[in-house]
């Protein structure tokens, strides 16, 4: 708790959909294990565990990851124990800050069932819909493949979640149109963006290494553009995600319009505490606060 005492205060605090966050940093879904919680101290304003699904998923066969310049391509396949086991183990993620839960389903009904299951759980402050997974009823297109698709699932989940805040996590492709649809459908905030479709090939073996999503600093300028454009198109908060790896990155995303900022792949190669410290130093240097930065551009 030393970190919190040292870094806490008005300067770093933000408010997201009525939820007070002591810092604007949130772990991106699927990048913070239970085992790594001890390392993050109280750097994060909220905790967001790996996406949960209605039933257990074994995930994809290896190889699942491939390193690329300034990033990595992953294809994990949403490996998780299913929502019931997830909820049994949720207390382990209680670090004294709000818990956001990421959910994904194969169909709209599965999303709705998950939201219904989580709606009444007082441990969960908000739910993030992982809309980048394939909708099996729509030929495998993702739930955010277009505004109509995004609207359908968000409207249904909005009802199922009752008063709990709903975040819609959107991919980069078509992000502005999807963001507008998501807002109209009742999303309380938008997480922008997910990994970017990518491929790695082993030329010497003449095989595909990993066909999946690119993350890491390589995608930061893309994410920054998406956050900037979406922030101007909607009136709900934007949570930035995509290549955040320094305190300056956090500042840039907030200047572009983000209310909170997710840290994902960068946490594999450095301590999130360093990112928060850099951001805190930036605020001191600029004589400003986190909440004042949002949309200052």
């Amino acid at each position, binding site marked *: 708790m030393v970190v919190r005492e040292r870094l806490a205060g008005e300067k770093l605090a933000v408010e997201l959909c009525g939820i007070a966050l002591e810092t604007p940093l949130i772990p991106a879904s*699927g*990048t913070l294990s239970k085992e790594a919680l001890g390392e993050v101290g109280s750097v994060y304003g909220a905790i967001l565990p790996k996406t949960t699904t209605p039933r257990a998923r*074994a995930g994809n*066969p290896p190889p699942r990851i491939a390193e690329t310049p300034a990033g990595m391509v*992953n294809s994990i396949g949403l490996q998780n124990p299913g929502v019931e086991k997830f909820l049994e183990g949720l207390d382990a993620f209680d670090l004294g800050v709000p818990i956001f839960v990421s959910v994904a389903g194969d169909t709209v009904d599965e999303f709705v069932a998950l939201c219904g299951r989580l709606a009444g759980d007082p441990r969960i402050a908000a739910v993030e819909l992982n809309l980048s997974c394939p909708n099996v009823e729509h030929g495998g297109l993702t739930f955010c493949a277009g505004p109509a698709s995004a609207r359908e699932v968000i409207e249904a989940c909005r009802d199922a979640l009752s008063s709990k805040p709903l975040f819609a996590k959107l991919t980069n492709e078509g992000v502005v149109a999807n963001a507008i649809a998501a807002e109209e459908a009742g999303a309380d905030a938008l997480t922008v963006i997910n990994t970017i479709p990518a491929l790695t090939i082993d030329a010497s073996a003449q095989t595909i290494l990993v066909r999946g999503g690119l993350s890491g600093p390589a995608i930061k300028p893309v994410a920054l553009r998406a956050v900037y454009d979406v922030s101007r198109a909607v009136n709900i908060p934007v949570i930035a995600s995509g290549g955040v790896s320094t305190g300056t990155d956090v500042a840039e995303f907030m200047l572009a319009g983000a209310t909170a900022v997710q840290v994902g792949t960068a946490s*594999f190669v450095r301590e999130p505490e360093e990112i928060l410290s850099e951001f805190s130093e930036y605020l001191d240097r600029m004589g400003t606060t986190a909440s004042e930065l949002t949309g200052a551009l």
Partner: protein
Amino acid sequence: MKFHGVKIEDREWIGGYTLIRYRWDGAIEPGQFAMARVAGYPVTFDPFLARPFSFYDHDGETASLLFEVRGRGTALLDDAPDRIEVSSPLGRGFRINGANGPVALLGGGIGVAPLKVLSRRLDALSVPHDVFLGFADARYAAVAGEFPGAKVATVDGSAGVQGTVLDAAPDLTRYTAVYACGPNPMLAAVKRAAGEDAFCQLSVEERMGCGNGSCNGCVVPVRDGGYVRSCIEGPVFDAEALAW
């Protein structure tokens, strides 16, 4: 992931492998690994990730890593300046069972790495053990000199017997425990050779993203279905738990 800057005390090239030593007075269990890289992030974007290496040796004060240059990450570590960054020891190491031995240690290629510190631990526990090492050729097999009495096989026959590590080893069922590290096909062969009832522990080699269980990238298939992470549930597994 937290990284610690450490000074390389000593660097040695043994055959086809590089050995680096640095001061580490914390506990290290045989079979555990460290993530290592050349410089502090965000200085290097390429390579972006750190690399996992089993600890080769640890005398309580100095730890060492043995690795083979296979790509950019290892090439940079090979001719790194005198400081690198390492994680704390990670993962589950070898479990020493209560038997008095003799036990067998088998290494394939760079899979030799965790056997040195395991051998040191077995010596401390007065457990007699035999070491069997397999390599591609005599150049790599030079590291066998670090294991007095080890039996060696090379694929091309340029050192030791010609064949795989199992061609250098006698009937493994005579041992009270079998420990092995190497490529997955070798480990699967060791598991078969050790027999179903054996106390057999295998250290797997997998590409890793984070080393702390977060990315789910380094998984291996398990007998009960699905996958588990080699960085948290491994890298050392009971042979019977693995699906291959």
